[in-house]
């Protein structure tokens, strides 16, 4: 925890150093755009839940520069991301990969929607069927017909 605090302090002092500084940018706009899109989905390790694109932390700055170097050298997006996951693990991905460990995460919402949808469909069906369960007696039917006629008239 202390370790983290040391970094938190450092992070705080650096905070308004803002993300993405002019000097970091690549000359090629297409490459720069790729770099920004990629860094937006990579987690800043020291600041929790912020991407390196948004973070002012020094490590995030270093990683942005590194990512741009890889891209400028001709890395594909996947290669550039692999460079970081090799060192920091899958934790840096703000969008976890779809793999057995994350099946529940990715398919859970669909499963919940299907279950909730089916459940409510059964419920709605039951609500609708109930009146048919108790058909009107001949007497009631006659009275209803009479009332309907009055209503129309």
């Amino acid at each position, binding site marked *: 925890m202390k370790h983290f605090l040391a970094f938190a302090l450092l992070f705080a002092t650096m905070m308004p150093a803002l993300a993405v500084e*002019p000097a970091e940018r690549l000359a090629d706009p297409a490459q720069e755009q790729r770099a920004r899109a990629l860094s937006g989905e990579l987690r800043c390790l020291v600041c929790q839940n912020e991407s390196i694109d948004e973070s002012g932390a020094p490590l995030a700055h270093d990683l942005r520069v590194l990512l741009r170097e890889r891209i400028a050298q001709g890395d594909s997006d996947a290669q550039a991301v692999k460079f970081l996951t090799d060192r920091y693990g*899958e934790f840096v991905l703000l969008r976890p990969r779809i793999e057995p460990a994350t099946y529940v995460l990715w398919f859970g919402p669909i499963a*919940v929607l299907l279950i909730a949808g089916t459940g409510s469909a059964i419920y709605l069906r039951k609500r609708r069927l109930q009146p048919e369960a108790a058909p009107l007696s001949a007497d009631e039917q006659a009275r209803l017909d009479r009332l309907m006629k009055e209503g129309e008239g």
Partner: protein
Amino acid sequence: MIVELGHFALILAACLALLQSIVPLYGASKNHAGLMAVGQSAAVAQFVLIALAFAVLVNAYVTSDFSVVNVVENNHSAKPMLYKITGVWSNHEGSMLLWVLILSLFGAAVALAGDNLPPGLRARVLAIQGMIGVGFLTFILFTSNPFLRVSPAPLDGQGMNPVLQDPGLAFHPPFLYLGYVGFSVTFSFAVAALIEGRVDAAWARWVRPWALAAWCALTIGIAMGSWWAYYTLGWGGWWFWDPVENASFMPWLVGTALLHSAIVVEKRDALKSWTILLAIITFSLSLVGTFLVRSGVLTSVHAFAVDPARGAFILVLLVLAIGGSLTLYAVRAPSMAGGGIFAPISREGALVLNNVLLTTAAATVFLGTLYPLFLDVVNGPKVSVGFPFFNRTFVPLMIPVALAVAAGPLLAWKRGDLRAALQRLWFAFFATLAVVLIGLYLAGFKPVLAILGLGLATWVGFGSLCEWAERVKLFRIPFGESWRRAIHLPRASYGMTIAHIGFAVSIAGIAASAFETERIELVHPGETLQVAGFNLLFKGTEKVPGPNYIADRATIEVRQNGATIAVLHPERRFFTLQQMTTGVTAIRSNFMADLYVALGDPDDKGGATLRAYWKPLVPWIWIGAVFMALGGLLSLSDRRWRVGVAARRRVPAAHPAPGE
């Protein structure tokens, strides 16, 4: 001495809460009026005592009484008065005291405003409130006591995190807690109904105002937090899907579902056990949020200091409150079958759809928030679940919600005619089509999803207007007649329309963020930065002393078409005590778009990095939230909540004659 008075008041409040949780419950079971009435006096006295304790703590902060540990840890004599006061709830102990203060406020409100409730129900509701009070008061007294002394008293305090010294963040927690804790009342009503084994339209009518009040406060609280992030973080992000943000968002989603399902209970006597379940889950999610934030199981920017004993204590409270209520639910709810009969295509059906989607959305947020923790606990891989996950799962769920919001209110109860409802939305349909086509034409087919988002907002907004027009028969009967109808529409109906329009306004603000322009450059005095047709002339920075900081203050002239239209002063503040720098952005808003400027690192030639943005429609995100809350308040002021049980409520405007 005064501090001990506060401490003593808190202990006494805990004792009273214990009394309040037992005596009225026993009285209700024996139908003894005197014992039941104990609940009311206990609830009011409990509130007075906790308010006294809270006032004592505020006083200790204001007078900088550094013999109190909590004051030492979070206060400093040089802090501005506003932040001395708000500093009370900037920390774990003080914010828990605010939590129970609000809890007891709601308890007292039920005691005083509940004259139209049957005495048995009121006694049981107050008893449940009392139990929650016992739990959290003992939690404070045993693990998080803000009144502990330190000896010898230090000369000055350690101060408060500068990030928290901001008006937006100062008032964010009180609203948030009003929402979180406000849902304790609906929870208590649900548990009381389970004990009595009876839920009917009258019950729904009593519960709904409390749910509305809590929901409005939570809406404002969440919006304030998001607005704070927007103007503080220097690049205009306003939502991060951070675990703590999600902890406040989940009760909001389920609470929204609850507001809608309670309507079905009230009008149609259906969805009863489901509504009870939603009431329990809404408050349970508030409690889970409290656990996540205060136990240290998750890491988050917002998390409070970690203490395993606190986590264990809150977990015990969770098991008692949530486990207990859900067990009671499993036993009692099966006998609460609803009576209403309706076709799938009907107002009821639309509200069921609303509930399916909102609860699925809440489950998605729950899964995304807790998944890293679950994997970690079973020694699985460490993963992060960030905004890309939620954009791919949560956002698609909101699309059908938005589509249905416009059509649902046009369906009749029992059996609706979808085709007729859609026909009445022709104007909204063409407005949507126009917005999408014009948007695609102007933006060159680029951010297609954002344009469709704007279309969706148009659909919801104009759809809500169409529904209102339908109710007053606008253009179909003489104007004066429409006017008369408009005046006589119930406030609850206007509340719904305004809240739905607010939803539309927020969607538009969110969708339009794809159109922002960004410029980040190093500028020197006399140089100009151009963004979206504005020329920002940087005139340099100067040192300006603040009460407990020194600021680098930039002066930037904003020019458009040669004329100076504004002067902006973004700052970087260096807090000497904490050795921390925070940024203060400068925003010029005309409510249609924001010009947003943040000051970055200086260079050694008097220059600085500037981040400038033009963000179209972004203020609408929060304006929409304010509309939603206003709609809720307007609905809350509807007469029908105030009149007695027997009063017949208006049947919603009957839907249009055949042959139209």
